[in-house]
């Protein structure tokens, strides 16, 4: 395949198949929709990061002296809303899931291409409502919309933002549906479930959560809006409602939602670690099943966000027990990835550096989750910076790191170009250092007792906050660099060839960038996932050279 790399740019592909804005805005090609999502979420990532930098700058000094208290409250709220609903949730499933799932299963497109395009439009409309709320007074409820603050007391534009979150939920559901049906119905001949890449297993588990969980969020958000507008008396005690009911409903979705954010990241890690250690993923079945276990158990742990909220002692203990259980499948994954390296033949390209960063940071994020599951400790550290640090170790150290691994790993496939390796390694290092400097001090701040969402704080917390802000500026540079050199590589990058990593997986068996319908001929799969022994065998792969003709 490498032999045809110099001709691949001339080949018709999904990028040069058609030109003009209309050809993008009306496309039903899953790859183009993936690119639309990539551009959209990158913009929102920059916006959310901008809010984060203002937060960190405010916290440089104990006094609330940079912005007003109300402004600060809007900043952390908008940071959370934008990063979670407009970046983290769609980041991997809607960009890489969209782009890769059909190719990985050997299909021409997702099962419902028009639904897929609709999902992007719905996402953008929802994002439009959220942006409208930012411009017209902002939102100051925290991304968690806790009642009765959100329903009765907030003076900000809650209804517009809630509507925005409600609408983006449907784009999630559409993407989830599409992935589930595609994996069930459109696998290439010979591609049995146990031959699927672990990326597919992870996305399948994610999609199940999206389809089952998101409607609950939608209902909850509608109830908040109705309560705010018409005083229905569902959540506000003054009208006979129960504020804890909101928390139950909200976390019933929003806890599984963190698995929507982390499971696809785990899929990315499995693909990259196999490729750069030239090995089958250790314990394939266990890694696949742990994704399913996380999806199922993830629905049963929501009230661990509510230990101090006024639920009964026994309810808290049961949710604590279940939360400890959900830690196990994540641990199983970490151990299997580590074992995958054993007796591998390891190289250190940028995606692999991000994989190492992911495993280290996710391990810390996961283990500090055990602290929070322990209800006796949670009583002290919940709603402090300990939670903020834990959450960012999982969501930034985990999901964003994996997102960057994916972006570098599949960039040659998406664009046909290589990114500059030295710059990307430097930025990976900056991200790792900057991240730890930003968030590790927050664990200490949390145990010291600094509450989250504080505009001003007692002076003794300043040194750790200064460290955190310093780390955030390094992190910002690390995040901005890829945006520049990846854009640069579109024009000046070396041609990547079809499979620069010699990677397994059907997406690498077609040209880069792929043609509109992915494969010239439908592949027939006769091999296990991650058949690196065959790919690396002297004389090359024996039975899966190129693509075989179906039937």
């Amino acid at each position, binding site marked *: 395949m490498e032999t045809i790399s110099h001709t691949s740019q001339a080949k018709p592909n999904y990028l040069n198949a058609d030109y003009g804005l209309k050809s993008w805005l009306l496309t039903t090609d899953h790859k183009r929709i993936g690119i639309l999502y990539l551009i959209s979420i990158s913009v929102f990532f920059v916006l959310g990061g901008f809010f984060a930098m203002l937060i960190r700058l405010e916290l440089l000094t104990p006094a609330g002296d940079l912005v007003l208290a109300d402004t600060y409250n809007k900043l952390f709220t908008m940071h959370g809303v934008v990063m979670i609903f407009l970046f983290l949730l769609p980041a991997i499933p809607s960009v890489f899931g969209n782009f890769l799932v059909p190719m990985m299963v050997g299909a021409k497109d997702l099962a419902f291409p028009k639904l897929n395009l609709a999902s992007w439009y719905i996402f953008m409309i929802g994002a439009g409502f959220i942006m409208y709320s930012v411009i017209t007074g902002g939102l100051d409820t925290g991304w968690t919309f806790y009642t009765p603050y959100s329903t009765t007391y907030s003076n900000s534009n809650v209804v517009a933002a809630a509507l925005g979150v409600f609408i983006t939920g449907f784009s999630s559901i559409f993407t989830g549906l599409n992935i589930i049906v595609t994996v069930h119905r459109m696998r290439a001949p010979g591609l049995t479930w146990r031959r699927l890449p672990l990326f597919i297993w992870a996305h399948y588990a994610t999609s199940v959560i999206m389809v089952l969980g998101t409607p609950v969020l939608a209902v909850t958000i509608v109830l908040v809006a109705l309560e705010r507008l018409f005083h229905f008396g569902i959540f506000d*005690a003054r009208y006979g409602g129960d504020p804890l009911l909101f928390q139950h409903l909200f976390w019933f979705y929003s806890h599984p939602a963190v698995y929507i954010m982390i499971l696809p990241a785990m899929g990315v890690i499995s693909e990259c670690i196999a490729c750069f250690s030239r090995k089958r993923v250790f314990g394939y079945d266990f890694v696949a099943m742990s994704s399913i276990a996380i999806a199922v158990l993830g629905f049963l742990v929501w009230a661990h966000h509510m230990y101090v909220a006024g639920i009964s002692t026994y309810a808290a203990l049961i949710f604590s027990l279940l939360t400890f259980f959900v830690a196990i499948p994540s641990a199983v994954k970490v151990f299997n990835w580590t074992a995958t390296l054993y*007796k591998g033949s390891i190289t250190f390209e940028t995606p692999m550096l991000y994989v190492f960063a992911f495993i280290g940071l996710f391990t810390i994020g996961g283990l500090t989750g055990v602290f929070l599951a322990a*209800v*006796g400790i949670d009583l002290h550290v919940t709603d402090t910076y300990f939670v903020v640090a834990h959450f960012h170790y999982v969501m930034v150290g985990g999901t964003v790191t994996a997102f960057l691994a994916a972006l570098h790993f599949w960039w040659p496939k998406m664009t046909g170009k290589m990114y500059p390796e030295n710059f990307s390694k430097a930025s990976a290092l900056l991200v790792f250092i900057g991240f730890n400097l930003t968030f590790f001090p927050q664990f200490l701040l949390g145990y010291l007792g600094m509450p989250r969402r504080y505009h001003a704080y007692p002076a003794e917390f300043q040194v750790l906050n200064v460290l955190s802000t310093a780390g955030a500026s390094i992190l910002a540079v690390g995040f901005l660099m890829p945006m520049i050199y990846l854009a640069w590589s579109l024009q000046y990058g070396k041609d990547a060839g079809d499979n620069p990593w010699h990677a397994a997986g059907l997406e690498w068996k077609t040209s880069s960038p792929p043609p509109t319908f992915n494969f010239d001929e439908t592949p027939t799969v006769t091999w296990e996932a991650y058949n690196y022994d065959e790919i690396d065998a002297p004389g090359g792969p024996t039975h899966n050279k190129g693509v075989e003709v179906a039937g």
Partner: protein
Amino acid sequence: MWEHLPLFPARASTMAGHVDALYFALVAIAAFFTFLVSALILFFAIRYRKARNPHATQIHGSTALELLWTGIPLGIVMMIFVWSAVIFFMQTRPPKGAMEVYLVGKQWMWKFQHTEGQREINELHVPAGRDVRMVMTSQDVIHSFYVPAFRIKADVLPGRYTSTWFHATTPGHYHLFCAEYCGTQHSGMIGEIVVMDPVEYDKWAASGVDGSLASAGEKSFQHYGCSMCHRADNAGRGPNLTSVFGHQVLLDDGRTITADESYIRESILNPGAKIVSGFKNIMPTFEGQLSEDEVIGLVAYIKALGNGTANLPLPVSEPNSGAYPVAPKPEGSAAKSDKTATTPEKNGAAKPAARQ
């Protein structure tokens, strides 16, 4: 330690040591696994780098290893669960006989009422060496009562009472934070817990007070006309409230509940929610007419009636004559007579209780 870079919070309650011990154990476990995974990755990355190991050896997996690294973490977290559950029971079960302080949270201040009658805002004086139970409610949004030095936190909700407790050990000044985001001045909703030597505390609590919290409640009880119906001679249209608090109450739907602060609060603000067996749903609601402070006074008063430190104001016949419906005792023999004795005479004028 270092004044500008504290790395560990002060320990000022009996709970702090328990929480810290589990915390240190978890830090040790987390550090062990983080170093284990990092060391393995580093070792494999160096030992099996392509330059040294050009050809990978394919290994499909090992069920024995999978069981090992499922079983060991599972065993560890189950031990942590049990340990943390034991601490949690200590945290959520206040010892009997704890002194009580009432708290009303509002945007953005903490209001405290001591049973001795002292009132404070954003500052709470408590004695060292005694159990203190906080009975808390909010006037508006959810707040959270958080004292890092005591390692306790509990949300303060509108529309109900929640509680937490502590046993301060070391006199000094400690942070009180609101830990649940509550709006503009959330980070300004901070205060100070002043832990005092018990003797000094008693002096402080007795100084300049013109009556206990229960006596303030007694005044409200008369002012709002409660005493018209809740009479000590069992002749009122409402139950006699002597010896109610802390006892079992039989409801007209057959359920039995324990009269606690939340029950009393609900019965004042939403009297129809739980009707005492043998009485009619005729009490008007006081929702919106009483401040949370006044409700707390009434609760403290009814609580004092329950433990015999206060009496109902109107003609005191025989206190505690069994006129209040008492839940059937397990022995059962006395149950019938208890129940039959509970139906009070419903005579008296039909005019509603005067308020104002």
